[in-house]
């Protein structure tokens, strides 16, 4: 167990280190950021001063070392475009994106689990095929299009829901559904597979022979045993949702991290973009780690 933990943690740390390096060197390829930051009227001296402020006059390797060191200290640098520390800009947007991610996750779980259960129990019937087609459709719907269609139907025609912005719970509904559709498909399919696998086991058969049926069979026997793969993908789904937020937030003008990414790219504010990418991959790596650990916690039979 300890050996496995040490191995997994060092692997995760190595990956994060790789991402930090990749982001640094990719950013070097973009050329001189100073030219973009200063107005056209800037003099040679201005440019020189700016380069010194940003540390660009030092050799690449020492810049790299500084970047690594700063990132390690959680000092994410300064956005000259917005004239504020990057960490401040990003933390101000996190709650919005978190709200959206939670909404989407709740939606996808609440709809995905029952759908998967129904698909598993009706596996040999036509209903299951139709549901599977529905799930596949959810998987193939482009987020931005489903968002636009929902805006058209519920926002413009029926006028039930606000089309953009944030504030109340009704603002959250459409972005959550649009973002959650893909996860819904994942949950439904995982649940279906896991439950189908459990349904074939002896203990279920004997429970059924004793006359246990329906909700009681699911609640008392099935759920806990088929939960392992389902819970462990939740961690990974969360990181998927955060990436999907880029598009959904743009569609619904939701002022979270995704919209910040797009605004920063439009303003060529790489200081912010690179940290968002780092944050995204940090969340993905941690999510993978957590899902591995969850496996062994939920199911004591799995030894690490």
């Amino acid at each position, binding site marked *: 167990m300890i050996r496995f933990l040490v191995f997994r943690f060092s692997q995760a740390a190595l990956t994060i280190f790789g991402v930090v390096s990749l982001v640094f060197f990719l950013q070097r390829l973009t050329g001189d950021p100073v030219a973009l930051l200063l107005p056209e009227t800037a003099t040679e001296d201005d440019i020189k001063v700016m380069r010194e402020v940003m540390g660009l006059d030092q050799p690449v390797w020492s810049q790299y070392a500084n970047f690594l060191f700063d990132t390690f200290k959680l000092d994410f640098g300064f956005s000259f475009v917005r004239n504020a520390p990057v960490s401040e800009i990003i933390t101000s947007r996190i709650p919005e994106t978190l709200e959206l991610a939670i909404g989407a996750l709740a939606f996808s779980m609440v709809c995905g689990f029952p759908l998967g259960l129904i698909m598993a129990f009706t596996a040999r019937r036509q209903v299951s095929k139709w549901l599977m087609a529905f799930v596949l459709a959810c*998987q193939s719907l*482009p987020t*931005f299009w489903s968002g636009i269609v929902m805006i058209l139907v519920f926002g413009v025609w029926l006028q039930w829901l606000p089309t953009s912005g944030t504030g109340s719970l009704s603002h959250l509904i459409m972005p959550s559904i649009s973002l959650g559709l893909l996860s819904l498909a994942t949950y439904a399919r995982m649940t279906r597979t896991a439950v189908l696998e459990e349904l074939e086991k002896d203990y279920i058969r004997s429970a059924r022979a004793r006359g246990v049926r329906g909700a009681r069979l699911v609640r008392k026997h099935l759920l806990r045993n088929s939960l392992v793969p389902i819970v462990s993908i939740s961690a990974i789904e969360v990181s998927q949702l955060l990436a999907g937020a880029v598009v959904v937030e743009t569609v619904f003008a939701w002022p979270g991290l995704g919209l910040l990414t797009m605004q920063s790219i439009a303003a060529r504010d790489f200081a912010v973009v690179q940290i968002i990418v780092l944050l995204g991959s940090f969340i993905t790596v941690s999510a993978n780690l957590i899902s591995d650990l969850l496996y062994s916690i939920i199911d004591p039979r799995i030894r690490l």
Partner: protein
Amino acid sequence: MEYLKEATFILRREIAQFWPYLFLVIFIVMAILSPWISPFDPDRQHLLARLKAPGFEVNGGVFWLGSDELGRDVLSRVIYGARISVFVAFLSVIFSGVAGTALGMLAGHHRGWFEQILMRLVDVFLSIPAILLAILLVAILGPGIVNVILVLSLSRWPRYARVAHAQTLSLANREFVVISNAMGATTLHVLRTHIFPNIFNQILVIATLEFGLMVLFEAGLSFLGLGVQPPAASWGSMLSTGRNYVSTAWWISTFPGVGLFILVLSANTIGERVGGLPKYGGTES
């Protein structure tokens, strides 16, 4: 009557089997023949016939799917959009698939430091959420159709590499590989004649699923303004402008969306089906 019943039954079954292939073929034909089958030049503006509803008659033809904010025919733009989607997705899948498979097989065959470095690099690439990686790369390289293909290939090769690596490792101890190595066959020979044919099926399944994903990614990048640049007709950028007119001209964003949805659904369905066959490592019959 009996015959008729049976015929309809068979027909229905066959349609259920083949619709994704049918749609895929339709889109590919649309992509290849777009200059000849589209009723209008997709960039030709009819400034007096802007934002017209589907079926509007204009001198020289009919806007079957309406016109956009510059009076361009939506149907022609959807047809040309299919061309960009299919073209970009196809090339990205080819490039990333070939590069990823080759690197993965090499890493699996030639263990040691090359394997270590490559597979850690794969970990790094796969740990950056795909759309963020693509956005970052586009932001660096700049938008445009060539760069989109480059970016998609650069960000998707690790998926093939990981599978090719694992599959190659699982074959490494089989007799035909061991003997071939012992007889002094070159790496190229072993990989080409012994490893590749045996892992091709798995790679094909990934490639089919990736095709749908690449269509989505191209549209997503174009939607965000980072992909194919106007005035070129990409479904993503049509959706993006259509969004501004969604309350007055629903057709601008609806039809490219339908095209996108059907193309991706077809690719995903085929991928699912092929991946489910026992021959390709699945369990469903």
